[in-house]
């Protein structure tokens, strides 16, 4: 269901007419259109946006941890169209229990490292990702640092007053 505020965003209207069940909500805050997409549709919607809506660039993929609310994680895709000079943000909610979403590497190869970073930092796994390994942290690292329940100084070293 497309919210009224997004009826002026051409790309959002097109997604809505093509995939009527994909959009679960959205808003335009501070001039930035944001669409909430049902996780099952994310790859199809992205492919549609890239091939038919000319969003040739995937600027970034990242996540936000909303502990303690459920679903806990919000995965955000920031898209950019050079021809239309437009930006669009897609968002998917991922629950802590499932912690998994389809990879969009097949649509934009740029997603590869960004999804690896989200996996590294939040522990969200991406299905069909060609190379899902940690990217910034060491391979034997325990935990996912950008989760809100991960202490800033890490688990391994605790500092105590003498």
């Amino acid at each position: 269901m497309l919210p009224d505020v997004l009826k002026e965003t051409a790309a959002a209207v097109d997604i809505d007419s093509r995939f009527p069940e994909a959009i679960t909500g959205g808003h335009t805050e501070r001039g930035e259109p944001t669409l909430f997409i049902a996780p099952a549709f994310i790859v199809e919607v992205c492919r549609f946006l890239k091939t038919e809506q000319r969003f040739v660039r995937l600027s970034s993929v990242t996540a936000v941890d909303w502990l303690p609310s459920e679903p806990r994680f919000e995965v955000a895709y920031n898209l950019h169209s050079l021809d239309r000079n437009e930006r669009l943000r897609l968002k998917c909610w991922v629950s802590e229990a499932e912690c998994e979403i389809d990879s969009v590497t097949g649509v934009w190869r740029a997603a590869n490292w960004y999804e690896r970073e989200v996996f590294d930092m939040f522990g969200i796994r991406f299905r069909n990702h060609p190379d899902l390994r940690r990217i910034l942290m060491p391979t034997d690292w325990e935990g996912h640092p950008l989760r809100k329940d991960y202490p800033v100084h890490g688990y391994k070293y605790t500092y105590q007053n003498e």
Partner: protein
Amino acid sequence: MRELTTHTDSIAATDAVDLEHRLVETVPGTTRRMTLNMGPQHPSTPGVLRIVLELDGETILSAFPDIGFLHTGIEKECEVKTWQQAVTLTDRVDYLANLSNNLVYALAVEKLIGDIEIPPKAQWTRVMMAELQRLNSHLVWLGTHALDIGAMSVFFYCFREREDILRIFEMFSGQRMMTSYIRIGGLALEPPRGWQQVVGKFINAFPSKVDEYEELLDSNPIWMRRTQGVGITPLEDLLDLGVTGPMIRAAGVKWDIRKDEPYSSYDQFDFDIPTRTENDVYARYRVRLGEMRQSARIIKQALEGMPEGAWQADAPKIVLPEREKMKTQMEALIYHFKIVTEGFRVTAGEVYQAVESPRGEIAYYVVSNGTSRPYRVFMRTPSFGNLQALPALLEGRLLADSIASLGSMDFVLGDTDR
């Protein structure tokens, strides 16, 4: 130093990258493949980058960049700082573009706050500083890139001019590199007395210096042969892999965020976007030279047309009060106490703010939950995006060209790893 290992030893040498399953079994009687471990401290890699190259003779079959050696958890640390304190962390993302990072963070938070108006003088000073930063970054890039390819003298000339720029930064902010000069709500300090003379002297002499570098390099047959026709990658691949900035413009796309999504009054300046169509290492060098000339134009316009007036927003709850007011006005003292101890609250919401850094698109995704600390700061850094295209630039090419291709990408590893 380069470490040469034969194929059989390579698995132990590259276990961290876990390449075992990727290496093709060598058939007896055919050419023996070799794994070359370049970095993390190879003299020609810009910073601590590790690239595992699989070679067949002189040809690179596959390249695997291994990053993360400089990861310092800046994004995590932003979450425990107040909004204004986090400015100092953005400096440390990219040592050659700290003002661009300050700027994008300040713009993002100001967009979140909403009802804050940055006075024209602060906006123009921001533009001028960001462009000086671009010159600084391009000078370091040109010097080191030429040094890697074998033209040593350019390095000394470039660092001569860079020193002048760092002195200007020191004059404005008290720091040569980690300036933290652009703050939420304006600038950190008032532009110092006599800055017009210093910047004017530098910027009047600068265009002739660019001619000097151009002459030094374009008359160097080794430079020309090593850069022309090298590192060509189709534009579709570059866009698909997330490459931004001068590399895209050297492939013929006229895309510059300063023009397409103007911020901080860039729309009031007159400048061109240099583009080339050759899409090789030489074209990237020409684009960056052109950008240096355009930046000099912008700085000159900023110098001549600098507006008068305030250099900080009129927002007492966000901007620290003047020292004099604190001694005479009760409210000023209260605001000062509140800002320093608790910080200011920022309206809940999210912003994706992009600016054109010397290396390409730098975008901060800032999320606020209405408290005095950022809930999440994601930094989409240009080096991370560009470096992803490294295998596309190297694979199937000659090893000797890899340094030229690497250098032409102009990445900073701190910017990649954050």
